[in-house]
């Protein structure tokens, strides 16, 4: 056997899973066949009284299913009947193992996730090493998948429906203590005692009948005919429907699998799960999520787009200009990985305040037990507040995170310039000013690059790496080395106002404004955005960002127009925001204080009160001058489509204009950075799955009704005509 080694020790067969072709054991058809063969061999050997299943990989039992195999399965047309037959065979093999007549112990020497834990579930006892990293659970739902090797059937029977559903639907991975507490494993042991503990159980207990095969077995919390089960199903249906907006087929399939199978004998329950598993594969969502959020994201996390021939750049010291929110975050994540940080602001006090904020953040993490005092001390000791640019001497990277003002940015660029050597790179954290322009202030424009971090930096994994006209490949490679070192994922974009992610996101906010002006009910504007999968609706975001920001932009445009002797005509949306501020003193959720220093009451498109917020009931009447009367409200479907299409079209324009060059970056970037709906797999995957020709046709319809922003770019029309897709 190539994957699973068989040996007999003390009258017990030990099956050691060690797939030499892979860094980790994964559940594949080949491995399962060997497992079955091993079980049969042990069963046939009268000298063997029990079986121990363990792994030869350090710290890992079986890490899960073979995702590539699963993605491939979902990529082609699916013959449901055939797949049902083939996949059911997997379930039959595990069923055979748990009914083979000899006790089988899963000796879990480490991580047992997904398919790995499902195998353990089909054993009669689960013994886990008591080591922090030895996580167990069924994480499939996190990737838009579901357990497919009996997990949705055995886990509810083992720990009860309510507990099992919570674990499966959230894709929870549990550390050993939690796993024992929740009943996912029966026993925790030190690594050196693992096999002896397994042998001991076989010798002293060795019950070879699964508990759910016992006639008198009562499932914890109640079986399929219990009121608890009905109530759990009712509650789970509503909560999951509410939270996913029906956008996640796997979540529903998990519930369906449990509902359909829970009352059945285990012999028949597997097929019920397989049906739902196939249903998930038949829907494009799982494959879309798997490709973008697993495979493509991994590339962004590994720097697949880093120029290959540049030697690796070791970042030891980083300078950060501006100790505001972004500067603090960048300082924090840099210091966390051992980089020395000079955090500079216009005076030392401001810089120190910035460090103080990082310290506060760390204190909170400490309180929650997410870090240790040692680590906190280490991080803080590496952040050096400063007001003196000469402290930047020896920096490998300097990131400016100052106010979005060209003059200020030029000033700090120049001030830094003379302190840096030719190997160092300078990065601007601008969220939209063209890098090529900003680089003009530098004496080394080839070393100048954009690193667009997202807030809060500690939590947002994505960084847009913006390449200006003069930016060298070497600088790009160095920027990659920096962001990979601070454990971020990157996408590479070419210079253009707003870059990529902000451009796409901007169209979403602006679509909300269009809808408002068209007289669509604000509740519908917001609800349709949420059901489209956007984490926050447009009017709610405007309030959060602050209406003052948008107001200032419009005012500046007005001034510019006046200066140029042109007539200024604000758009209705701009007029509404101006009126909210000027006539109603409504600045959003976090208003600036009044001129006299007094606090302003929060309020914008929403009223804010203890316990929540409500759309401002006076909005329609107050803004009636700019809002059209609309007797026929559009359907939520149409509104949803407008939000999705307007963003997808902007993404295609970015691709056509060369702002992004890789659709995988395009898909990952907007999901990770600006909350584009993850279930779609990103805008390009969305269009592919919609059907390019269908998309163009429906976009044309929207364009005719709602405006040219829905016109398809030439690229898309050509693709439709030629029958091409983004991923073909």
């Amino acid at each position: 056997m190539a994957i699973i080694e068989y040996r007999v020790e003390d009258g017990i067969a030990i099956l050691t899973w060690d797939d030499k072709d892979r860094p980790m054991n994964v559940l594949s058809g080949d491995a399962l066949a060997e497992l079955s063969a091993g079980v049969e061999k042990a069963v046939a050997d009268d000298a063997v009284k029990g079986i121990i299943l363990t792994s030869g990989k350090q710290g890992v039992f079986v890490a899960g299913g073979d995702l590539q195999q699963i993605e491939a399965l979902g990529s082609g047309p699916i013959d449901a009947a055939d797949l049902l037959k083939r996949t059911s065979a997997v379930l039959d093999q595990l069923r055979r193992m748990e009914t083979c007549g000899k006790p089988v112990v899963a000796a879990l020497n480490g991580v047992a996730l997904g398919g790995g834990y499902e195998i353990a579930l089909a054993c009669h006892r689960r013994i886990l090493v008591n080591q922090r990293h030895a996580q167990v659970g069924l994480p499939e739902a996190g990737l838009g998948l579901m357990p497919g090797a009996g997990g949705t059937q055995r886990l509810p029977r083992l720990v009860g429906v309510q507990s099992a559903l919570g674990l499966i639907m959230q894709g929870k991975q549990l550390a050993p203590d939690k796993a024992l507490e929740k009943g996912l494993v029966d026993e925790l042991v030190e690594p050196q005692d693992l096999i002896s503990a397994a042998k001991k159980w076989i010798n002293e207990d060795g019950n070879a009948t699964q508990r759910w095969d016992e006639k008198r077995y009562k499932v914890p919390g109640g079986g399929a005919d219990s009121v608890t089960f009905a109530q759990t199903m009712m509650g789970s249906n509503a909560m999951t429907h509410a939270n996913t907006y029906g956008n996640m087929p796997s979540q529903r399939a998990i519930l369906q699998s449990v509902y359909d199978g829970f009352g059945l004998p285990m012999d028949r329950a597997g097929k019920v799960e397989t049906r739902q598993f196939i249903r998930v594969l038949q829907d494009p969502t799982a494959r879309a999520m798997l490709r973008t959020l697993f495979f493509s994201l991994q590339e962004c996390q590994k720097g697949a787009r880093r120029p290959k021939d540049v030697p690796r750049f070791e970042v030891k010291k980083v300078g950060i200009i501006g100790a505001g929110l972004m500067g603090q975050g960048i300082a924090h994540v840099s210091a966390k990985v051992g980089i020395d940080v000079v955090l500079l602001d216009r005076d030392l006090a401001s810089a120190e305040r910035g460090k103080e904020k990082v310290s506060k953040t760390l204190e909170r993490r400490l309180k929650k037990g997410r870090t240790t005092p040692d680590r906190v001390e280490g991080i803080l000791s590496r952040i050096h507040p400063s007001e003196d640019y000469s402290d930047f001497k020896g920096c490998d990277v300097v990131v400016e995170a100052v106010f979005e003002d060209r003059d200020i940015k030029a000033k700090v660029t120049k001030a830094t310039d003379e302190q840096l050597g030719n190997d160092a790179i300078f990065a601007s954290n601008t969220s939209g000013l063209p890098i090529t322009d900003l680089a003009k202030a530098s004496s080394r424009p080839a070393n100048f690059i954009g690193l667009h971090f997202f807030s809060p930096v500690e939590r947002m994994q994505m960084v847009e790496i913006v390449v200006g006209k003069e930016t060298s490949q070497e600088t790009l490679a160095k920027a990659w080395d920096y962001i990979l070192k601070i454990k971020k994922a990157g996408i590479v974009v070419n210079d253009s106002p707003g870059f990529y992610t902000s451009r796409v996101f901007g169209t979403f906010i602006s679509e909300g404004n269009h809808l408002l002006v068209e007289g669509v009910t604000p509740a519908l504007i917001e609800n349709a955005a949420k059901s489209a999968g956007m984490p926050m609706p447009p009017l709610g975001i405007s309030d959060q960002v602050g209406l003052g920001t948008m107001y200032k932009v419009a005012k500046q445009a007005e001034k510019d127009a006046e200066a140029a002797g042109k007539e200024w005509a604000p758009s209705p949306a701009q007029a509404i925001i101006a009126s909210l501020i000027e006539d109603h003193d409504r600045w959003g959720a976090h208003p600036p204080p009044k001129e006299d220093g007094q606090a302003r009451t929060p309020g914008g498109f929403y009223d804010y009160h203890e316990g929540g917020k409500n759309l401002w009931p006076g909005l329609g009447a107050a803004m009636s001058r700019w809002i059209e009367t609309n007797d026929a409200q559009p359907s939520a479907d149409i509104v949803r489509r407008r939000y999705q299409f307007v963003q997808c079209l902007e993404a295609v324009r970015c691709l056509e204009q060369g702002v992004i060059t890789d659709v995988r970056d395009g898909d990952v970037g907007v999901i990770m950075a600006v909350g584009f709906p993850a279930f779609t797999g990103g805008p390009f995957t969305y269009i592919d799955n919609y059907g390019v020709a269908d998309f163009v046709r429906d976009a044309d319809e929207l364009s005719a009704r709602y405006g040219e922003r829905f016109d398809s770019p030439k690229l898309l029309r050509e693709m439709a005509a030629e029958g091409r897709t983004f991923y073909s």
Partner: protein
Amino acid sequence: MTDCFIYDAVRTPRGKGRKKDGALADAPPLRMAKAVLQALPERGDFDSKEIEDVILGCVEPVGEQGANVGRMAAMMSGYDESVPGFQLNRFCSSGLEAVNIAAAKVKAGDVDLIVGGGMESMSRISMGAAGGAWSTDPELAWDTSFVPQGIGADLVATKQGYSRNDVDSFAVESQRRAAAAWEGGHFDKSIVAVKDSIGVTMLDRDEHMRAGTTLEDLGQLKPSFEMMGRNFGFDAVAIQKHPEVEQINHVHHAGNSSGIVDGAAAVLVGNKEVGERLGLKPRARIIKSATVGSEPCIMLTGPMPASRKALAKAGMETSDIDLWEINEAFSAVCLLFMEEMGIDHSVTNVNGGAIAFGHPLGATGAMLLGTMVDELERRDLNTALITLCVGAGMGTSTIIERV
């Protein structure tokens, strides 16, 4: 087609649907059915074997009111063994639907004399006891946006802009009318006392009413469905289905929704000939009935399309109806019905309704029909329309005319 006449209609008083103090809770539910079924041949002075079927509505047909209470009740009542029976479940309109089906059999000429009615012991068999897939099976629950009925009622109020004061005021008036009706003896003709197995009266008067209820009283009550709606995702599911709503205004509570009670009712219908032969006097004619399906998430908007359909099939207009009876499942349902049908409260639920009396699920429809027959006679009017909103998004309406 054969005309179908109502010869008699009787009902039990409604007992509180609570085991601890409900007057009808200490005897099995069939005893209520026995009271009304025995009353029909007695009052009409005919042999029970003249009855060709007993159709009883029941919404939780399990346990002691399970397994075909129609036949069980006929046997329990000492009906001749030739009298068959069956149970049907159209949720809240079951009692009315039983009469409608009975009438249809008469009109078709399949039977001459038949009983339709219903029963429900909510004290002994709790709501939801029969289970069902709607809320539990993901396929059904998700695709039809299942939410509990009370959330639907609050959604109706939210969409129509009915305030807490609006729905409470309606409830206060229901209590006032109910008390006045009892005071005036409006129900005397049709109430049949329920007796226990030693012949002692268990209940002879509706016991759920709270005469003299004021707006202030109701103001004390907390919304019943707010916690459930907000904490368990139901509000969000309802809003996803009705995305023009920002937030559900939870206005319904125990005081402006139908009460939980026990009760049974039976209606004797037949053709002209059987009445003449047995010496029964026809009291009213069943003109038309209709049941329709409607959007299941909001669930309670069926009475309007059902009533319009029945009216259209009868070739009638709303102005042809003298009295209206809409089951007071929730205040908002009645307010919506009056608003959409353009009818006045003064001719609607003139003797109060389920907010005061309670709503014994399977029986209510037959009870409402009976009270309308009585009231048409008392007021010397001609036509009435009885309607109920029905779970899972349905509505049933029946139009009757005095003869």
